[in-house]
């Protein structure tokens, strides 16, 4: 099902949706694009926000349940999941969701993740104006969405071309038909043209490929790169695919079990109780991060563990070239 949402109908449509569920969208906060709950703020579609929207599926920090002790017995309280529509997920991040679905959906299934995932509607947005740091086309994740969505939006001259990709998406369009017009053949062709151009732009940025990256990883001087790394963990915290977590119980006798993002860049991640660490140096830990992205996740899920969003390069405190992996210092 394909339809056109005229520009002036976008806000009324979102307002209508926000009466039914929480709408998350890229907006300007402090003059910067961020994903957060939309309550009428101006939308910011120019740039993909630095912090990826996957945080609505795997938050940096979430309470799994509260434990309450009464007369020597424990009871457990879980908070209900919110229903959400996340608008403006770019194809790279959409690919990340696909990877996460395969990882958390594999046995043993992560019910907490799946709960959130099922409560989330995705209105993805094709990238018509990719940035310099974008590498999606080289890794097969964009700039046109290739993974499952409920709605897919492409900004074209006359408004937003909206395609439904799931039963929930079809319902969203049909239940709100007052906002939409029928999409014309010309508009569909305009979209194809825009996507072709965008792909060319991304491809002109560099010549990275999965295989090239694998070769680069083999050749890299990991010890030197490890000396340069400032151990901020930024690459792992910002990566839409990174999903490792730690679990802690906070509070005695009552309290909450909290799951928070972990990072394999820290030595404590792989250190054993005895103090032995199979990944002793920072270089070894960085190497492992790359192997996970380009070898292990593809083996496990059939999809690359890197979606080419370029965020790890943008946040790297040591400004290491994340693709060339050349030690400069």
């Amino acid at each position, binding site marked *: 099902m394909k339809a056109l949402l005229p520009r002036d109908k976008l806000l009324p449509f979102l307002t209508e949706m926000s009466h039914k569920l929480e709408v*998350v969208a890229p907006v300007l*906060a*402090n*003059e*910067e694009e*961020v*994903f*957060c*709950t939309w309550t009428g703020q101006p939308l910011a579609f120019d740039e993909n926000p*630095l*912090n990826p929207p996957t*945080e*609505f599926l795997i*938050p*940096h*920090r*979430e*309470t799994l349940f509260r434990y309450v002790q009464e007369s020597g017995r424990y009871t457990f309280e879980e*908070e209900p999941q919110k229903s959400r529509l996340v608008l403006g997920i770019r194809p790279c991040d959409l690919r990340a969701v696909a990877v996460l679905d395969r990882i958390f959906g594999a046995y043993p299934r992560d019910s907490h993740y799946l709960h959130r995932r099922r409560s989330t509607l995705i209105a993805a947005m094709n990238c018509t104006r990719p940035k310099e740091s974008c590498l999606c086309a080289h890794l097969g994740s964009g700039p046109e969405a290739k993974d499952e969505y409920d709605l897919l939006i492409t900004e074209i001259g006359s408004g937003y071309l909206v395609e439904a990709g799931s039963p929930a998406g079809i319902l969203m369009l049909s239940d709100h038909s007052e906002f939409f017009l029928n999409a014309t053949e010309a508009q569909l062709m305009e979209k194809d043209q825009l996507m072709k151009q965008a792909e060319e732009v991304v491809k002109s940025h560099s010549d990275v490929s999965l295989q090239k990256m694998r070769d680069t990883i083999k050749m890299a001087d990991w010890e030197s790169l490890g*000396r*340069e790394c*400032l*151990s*901020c*963990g*930024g690459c792992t*915290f*910002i990566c839409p695919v990174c999903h490792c977590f*730690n679990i*802690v119980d*906070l*509070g005695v006798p009552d*309290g909450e079990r*909290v799951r*928070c993002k*972990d*990072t394999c860049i*820290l*030595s*404590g991640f792989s250190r054993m109780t005895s*103090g032995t660490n199979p990944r002793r140096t920072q270089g070894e830990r960085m190497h492992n991060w790359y192997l996970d992205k380009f070898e292990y996740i593809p083996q496990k899920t059939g999809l690359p563990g890197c979606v080419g969003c370029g965020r790890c390069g*943008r*946040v*790297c*405190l*040591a*400004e290491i070239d994340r693709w060339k992996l050349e030690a*400069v*210092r």
Partner: protein
Amino acid sequence: MEKIHTTCVYCGCGCGLFLHVEGGKVVGVSPSSSHPMSQGRLCIKGWLGAEFVNHPDRLKTPLVRRGERLLKAGWEEALSTITTKFKEIRDSHGPDSLGILTSAKGTNEENYLLMKLARAGLGTNNVDHVARLCHAPTLAGLSYSFGSGAMTNPISSLAKSDAILIVGSNTTEQHPLVAFHILRGKARGAKIIVVDPRITQIADLADIRLSPRPGTDIAWINCFLNLLIQEGLMDEDFISKRTTGFDEVREAVSKYTPKAVEEITGIPAQRLTEAAIAYGSADRAAIVYAMGITQHTTGTDNVQALANLALATGNVGREGTGVYPLRGHQNVQGACDMGALPDLYSGYQRVAQARQKFEQAWLKPLPEKTGLTALEMMAAAEEGNVKGLLVVGENPMISYPDTKKIKQALLSLEFLAVCDIFPTETTELADVVLPAASFAEKDGTFTSTERRVQLVRRALPPCGECRPEWEIISDLLSRFDVPTDYTSPADVMEEIASVTPIYGGVIYDRLGTDGLQWPCPSRDHPGTGILHAEKFSIGLAKFRSVEHREPIESTDEHYPLLLTTGRSLYHFHTGTMTRRTSLLDREIPGPYVEMNPEDAKKLGVRSDQKVVVESRRGQLCMDAKLTTDVPKGTLFVPFHFNEACANVLTGQAVDPQSKIPELKVTAARVRRAD
């Protein structure tokens, strides 16, 4: 989910970040891309910066001591107990028997109100804070020499330097975002010279690395100057037009020959020459320093020696040049700016000169006598001269030298009130404990190490019955008959601006993302990035000759090793926040001592073995980490850990000028804990 832009609570870098708030909790942190310091980056502490906010250990109600125990109480009871007790003490022993230690973790507004409370409320200048233990020598040294004790340039200026001399700063761990800008400079071709007894990461990445014996900095700095004079690498034009007193310095440094200095410092003469020339021949050279320079009995002279070096080479007042003292806490700069110091009002206005002005502004008579510094207050407490103390957001039991003496001092007090966000070793000794709102739960401003005044925004309401300190202090001010009508921190800033010329143009509406760098004297002033560009505020900058003096604490046959203390990347100060952050506490879960494998071999110590470290003041048991990153004869102990508090070992010998204790030099010995 809401995202609120605010300023990081950890170090003096003052990074901009977003707090992600959902369901009344902080659920994540992300960096601000548009912020001039962070530029989309954070260090590991920043990324995990708000985990402690919702920690169950938070103090949530006021506590009042009943015998041995601290029991829950209401705000009225807690505040009226403080008021009654302080008034009693003041009436029977005079106002100078009271004192306040303010917080480098608090906002500018809170520090201003606390110093107002001390002076106008209690009637004493006994007000100080942790800057006494970190950059008091900077304030003394650079104020004398340049007319301002603050960082001369914005940090981003380092990326434009041709040479950067980094002294006694473990930059990648303590100020990671400063390291980011330094490494940008290096990528551009700047020569990096690191002087540190330890091989830190920044030392490892440096072009030239010098490892002096701790406490010998003046010797090698004077030697640099001597070499530059001989090589003709001075900026004679700058010296003659903009400075005074160089001849005396020229004369004094002449005896610091590389050979003589090699004897004192252990740095090979040739390396000294190489490093001096790298600094001196650069068109734009910068000096970055931290606690390795200041925490000595020669702290102020050390700073002066560096100032001499910068002045003699004309490396002040231009982009890429300058002197960069790196301040530890996110608002230790602001706490100093706000006059939380015993001899200065806000904006570094001397009590002796500005008293009348503040009396008119506050409508109260103000004390004349210079107050006591932090350690002097402790000594006075032990002697029974200071009887009542209010400590806000500080944990002297872990952070001050010679823990045993500090505990004795705090126990000698008639009345101790402590305001904090978590129970600490200091709140345990208190008579009244006040629960404060964390940085995520209040509005205000922090001033970063580059003089940038930035907004702190409330992201969620205070937990439990906690109140922001500015509210608590306002309440106390009225109880001490100082009229107040602040409805928000912005009102307090308005008052600050009206009495503090360097903050004259600071109002909340102007702060936005970039904040404002002081001096910003008026509302139409854009703030000042580079200080001393055209002229120094004191007219001509002053040279002062300084001589090498051995540290007061020295090694002997009983205590043959030199112990220095410091911090780790993964923890902050006394660990109240980082040790409650799961990943950080897992990374470095407990105390340790770093020692050289050769020393360890002599003592029969193996890696990760428990050892006892002893000094003339006490002993601690901890794990030994063997590493060649510390030179032979040297030990390094981080001071974050209450299980083995490094300051049990350190002493209270102080720099006579700035009263900073000699935290970087302690004679020690090690034995296996069998």
